[in-house]
């Protein structure tokens, strides 16, 4: 049996090589740095965010946050065109946004190596869908590598740049949450300084008009046919024959589950999941009794293997839902009984808006006025959960504004007087601006509420073009949201402090009543970043009316006959004092 990567890493350490315990994401960053990457542009998104943050620590690389994934991919492409090794990193749904440049970059090919790292989120730990980005590799005819631990994240990241230049194509590096956010040992190497390639004007290669693109499309096909053949000898597609009764074809995190669940099974571990090494698969299939494909989400490999006339089974065991695990495989393939849960019901603990979160004031006021909420992606999506339950729809980044407009066109202008489109500062910059232009241009009457907490919150506090800082925390030009909205043609732009509930309610009432597009900017920094020391609040003489409970604050807790404020959680925002009809909540002493 082959030694595990971990043990090999340990042995390398014994020989004096530097070994570090790294997140898959950090290892991708390390591999890219070692491979001489010079330009990285990304938009944050779980589980991909830490790749870009980790690269930002290397002084040799120009790393920046982009307003969205499409811009990020275009910047990475431009850097490649100008001869640098470049990378863009995003979550799976980010690839949807970046798909436009990516599909055509497959035609033009690259100058400096270009790697597109996409992190899928099977089981949707922090996502709105569990789409399988391997479909993109097929659809765009771009090769895709998939590492199975942090060491491979480092190795494949470096290999992807080499492949990109040798094959003249962008290369996808695909991670999933359990690879991106798992730590394991990585042997560290040195950075290779790769010289910038010279910039050439080459319209036949880089200007994709029909005449040129038709020629380039032939190149895409040739390249893919070449690679599909070469894949049969590729060193990262690894056959290990053990017991040959069962053979498993798998990749990524699934490989690890297979090794734990079926330690004796022979394996073909695919380091490149597109294109597939069909001859290697045929050969492997001929040596094993039963061939099983273990892949998370869609049955892509299974379908291709079956299409090649090779008999196998896969989704019959694993299904297409959620993430796999050692125990799920044991249960599905070996029929091992899963341990039964006791069925004892414990109160669930979903994530919540933090104490002192400025979004709370917005949703309290929205609920008070009984408004419909076309929602968006960010921390504020948590307002959809009870007790606030203040969201009617949430689709994708920036969709709130378009949805509000569409609802108005269906239901009539009066509908917009009871509706708001709610999205964050970073989400608005990401893909809300064009929708606002649409609303003005098409004479809608919608009200847009921008929750400007001066940061990209949910992904862990990344700077954005409106926050005034760059990825390194250095001062950067900040988009003036008021002026931006005005220049889109919005005549009524109002800035309000969401801690001031009366003002919040008043401006909501006024702006939703207007028969034209208006924007409300609810501005206050994220509670986790606002270090202002405020006195905490105390209750005395509580009548137990429950008015403050409507705020849904984690620091306010209902007891049998009264309400208490948890002093360790209270952030001193004071919204509860504003809503108490008996003035029983007052500012306390301790800050």
């Amino acid at each position, binding site marked *: 049996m082959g030694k*595990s990567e*971990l*043990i090999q890493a*340990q042995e390398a*350490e*014994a020989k004096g090589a530097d070994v*570090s*315990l790294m*997140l898959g994401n950090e290892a991708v960053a390390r591999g890219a740095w070692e491979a001489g990457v010079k330009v990285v542009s990304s938009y944050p998104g*779980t*589980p991909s*965010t*830490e790749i870009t943050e980790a690269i930002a620590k290397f002084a040799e690389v120009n790393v920046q946050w982009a307003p969205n994934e499409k811009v990020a991919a275009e910047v990475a492409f431009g850097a490649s065109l100008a001869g640098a090794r470049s990378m863009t990193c995003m979550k799976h749904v980010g690839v949807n946004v970046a798909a436009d440049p990516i599909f055509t970059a497959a035609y033009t090919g690259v100058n400096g190596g270009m790697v597109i790292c996409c992190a899928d989120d099977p089981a949707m*730990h*922090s996502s709105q869908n569990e789409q399988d980005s391997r479909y993109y590799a097929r659809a765009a005819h771009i090769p895709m590598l998939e590492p199975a*631990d942090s060491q491979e994240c480092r190795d494949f990241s470096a290999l992807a740049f080499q492949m990109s230049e040798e094959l003249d194509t962008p290369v996808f590096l695909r991670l999933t949450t*359990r690879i991106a*956010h*798992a*730590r*394991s*040992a990585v042997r560290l190497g040195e950075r290779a300084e790769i010289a910038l390639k010279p910039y050439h004007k080459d319209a036949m290669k880089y200007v994709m008009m029909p005449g040129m693109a038709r020629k380039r499309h032939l190149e895409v096909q040739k390249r893919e046919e070449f690679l599909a053949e070469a894949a049969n000898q590729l060193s990262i597609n690894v056959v290990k024959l053990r017991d040959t009764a069962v053979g498993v074809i798998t990749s990524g*995190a699934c*490989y*690890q*589950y297979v*090794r*734990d669940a079926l330690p004796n099974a022979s394996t073909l571990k695919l380091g490149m999941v597109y294109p597939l090494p069909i001859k290697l698969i045929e050969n492997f299939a001929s040596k094993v009794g039963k061939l099983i494909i273990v892949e998370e989400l869609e049955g892509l490999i299974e379908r291709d293997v079956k299409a090649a006339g090779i008999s196998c089974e896969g989704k019959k065991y694993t299904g297409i839902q959620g993430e796999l*695990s*050692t*125990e799920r495989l044991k249960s599905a393939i070996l029929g091992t009984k*899963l*341990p039964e*849960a*006791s069925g*004892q019901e*414990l*109160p*669930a*603990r*979903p*994530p*919540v*808006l*933090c104490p002192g979160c400025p979004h709370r004031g917005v949703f309290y006021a929205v609920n008070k006025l009984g408004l419909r909420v076309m929602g968006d992606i960010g*921390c504020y999506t*948590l307002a959809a*959960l*009870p*007790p606030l339950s203040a969201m009617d729809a949430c689709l994708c980044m920036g969709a709130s504004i378009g949805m509000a407009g569409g609802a108005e066109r269906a239901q009539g202008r009066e509908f917009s007087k009871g509706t708001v489109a709610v999205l964050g500062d970073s989400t608005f910059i990401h893909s809300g601006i064009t929708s606002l232009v649409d609303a003005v241009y098409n004479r809608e009457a919608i009200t847009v509420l921008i929750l400007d907490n001066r940061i990209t919150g*949910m*992904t*862990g506090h990344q700077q954005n073009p409106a926050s005034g800082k760059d990825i390194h925390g250095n001062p950067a030009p900040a988009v003036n949201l008021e002026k931006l909205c005005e220049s889109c043609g919005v005549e009524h732009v109002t800035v309000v402090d969401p801690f001031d509930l009366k003002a919040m309610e008043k401006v909501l009432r006024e702006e939703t009543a207007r028969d034209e597009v208006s924007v409300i900017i609810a501005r206050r920094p994220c509670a986790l970043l606002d270090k202002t020391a405020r006195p905490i609040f105390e209750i005395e003489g509580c009548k137990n009316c429950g008015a403050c*409970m409507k705020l*849904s604050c*984690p620091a*306010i*807790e*209902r007891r049998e006959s009264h309400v208490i404020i948890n002093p*360790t959680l209270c952030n001193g925002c004071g919204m509860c004092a504003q809503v108490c009809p008996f003035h029983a909540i007052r500012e306390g002493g301790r800050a």
Partner: protein
Amino acid sequence: MKAINFDLVIVGVGGQGTLLASKILGRLALDAGLGVKVSEVHGMSQRGGSVITHVRVGDSVHSPLVSTGNADYLLSFEALEGARAAGYLKPEGILIVNTQRISPMSVITGATKYPENPLNVPELKEKKVEALDALQLAENAGSQKAVNLVLLGKLSCHLPFSDEAWQQAIAVSVPRKTLEVNVRAFESGRTSAVAAMNV
């Protein structure tokens, strides 16, 4: 040295500092020349929701996830979360649990009740449970945030790593200015564990 293999699950409430605990454990295993994988939670669940981290140590660790019924240790930063994750423990597994109670939103609003004896779940019947007020011990050591080090201190009584190895792993994992408090918290957990076992 005898082969060291163990599976450990760390649970708590987002924001309690569970990631530092797994970072220290990972470092400890790496320094000892052991294979190790740590699976963390980032993103949405960190906003006050249930969080879980898997730590697997040994020479043939493949999956970064601990299977149900396979954990040697469950380290819980909060009582209800300990009960929720109890199914991870193997029959002879040990639960080390902070007795602190943090109400989830449904309890805060009065829609549900926090269980009177949260650890009274079938999965913990006949399991070894070591409960301690880690919040108090952390406060005594100088910071509420050191709950993670108190719990690691208690766990250290069960693991075959030397005191020097722990000190080393802690020193490289925590910010320099918090080192003293963290070491104090670790020691208080470690000694409280001995006391509890003598009871």
